[in-house]
């Protein structure tokens, strides 16, 4: 089983990366760009085949290590 995890900054948290990218895109002439937010995308391959167990494990991984829950949210997507 594979878990696809999106980690994004909580709203209101400063996103210097996103801002720098937006500025760079403007400098390259992409005027239609309004706003950019940068997050992480992590794929975890699991030996687990039980979806409920996998979900619980990945949830723990996010809470403990993958996401900084003080400032980040995460979303988990499981695919076979």
């Amino acid at each position: 089983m594979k878990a696809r995890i999106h980690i994004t900054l909580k709203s209101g948290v400063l996103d210097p990366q996103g801002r720098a990218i937006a500025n760079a895109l403007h400098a390259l002439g992409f005027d239609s760009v309004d706003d950019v937010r940068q997050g992480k995308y992590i794929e975890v391959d699991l030996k687990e085949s039980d979806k409920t167990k996998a979900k619980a494990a990945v949830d723990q991984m996010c809470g403990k290590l993958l996401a900084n829950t003080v400032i980040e949210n995460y979303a988990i997507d499981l695919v076979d």
Partner: protein
Amino acid sequence: MKAAIVVFPGSNRENDAKAALTQALGREPIMVWHRDTSLPKVDLVLVPGGFSYGDYLRCGAIAANSPVLREVKARSEQGMAVIGVCNGFQIITEAGLLPGVLLRNANLKFVCRNVGLRVETSNSRFTSGYKKGQVLSIPVAHHDGNYFADPKTLDELEAEDRIAFRYCGPEGRLDANYNPNGSTRHIAGILNKKRNVLGLMPHPENAIEPIHGSTDGKALFHSLVEAVS
């Protein structure tokens, strides 16, 4: 010889590089702000270390897209010498002057220390002041110096004698313990095909005076000045 240093928002070793070039040239290089409309006519452009644009997105990626880098690239194709140090290496690699990419250090940590550096070729205007096989002590200070390229590119670099420096231990030994960032094949610096562009992670500009604890970086700037003049 005339030299210029290209400065981006977030560059931070431009003055260190300036000191090294001034020592070698006997006069100051021209400092070029990235948005200046034209690059002066010079024989050498140095792209310094630092965190251009905060190194947000990928190290060097945003700076690599700046107009001044396009100009640097065009001139390098006509033979002008270019040296990219640390973030400068990342920038010119992102801009396509050199092959490969600099990834995050294998242990994910920033590392600042003197490393052993083995001179792999003295056949370039940057390294002619050294003997092949000579071991230098030069500091590194980076978070993303883990050189990566596909095996075909690496073989080509080796076959064409384009690896300028490798990380090494005492007596030039190649050993994972002396590789500060996990670089493939211990690569610390490479040349382009024409041998007029050098990119390297270590900071020769921080090894030019006795207080630096090593003056092994001096010969790089001096040989460059001699070769280009």
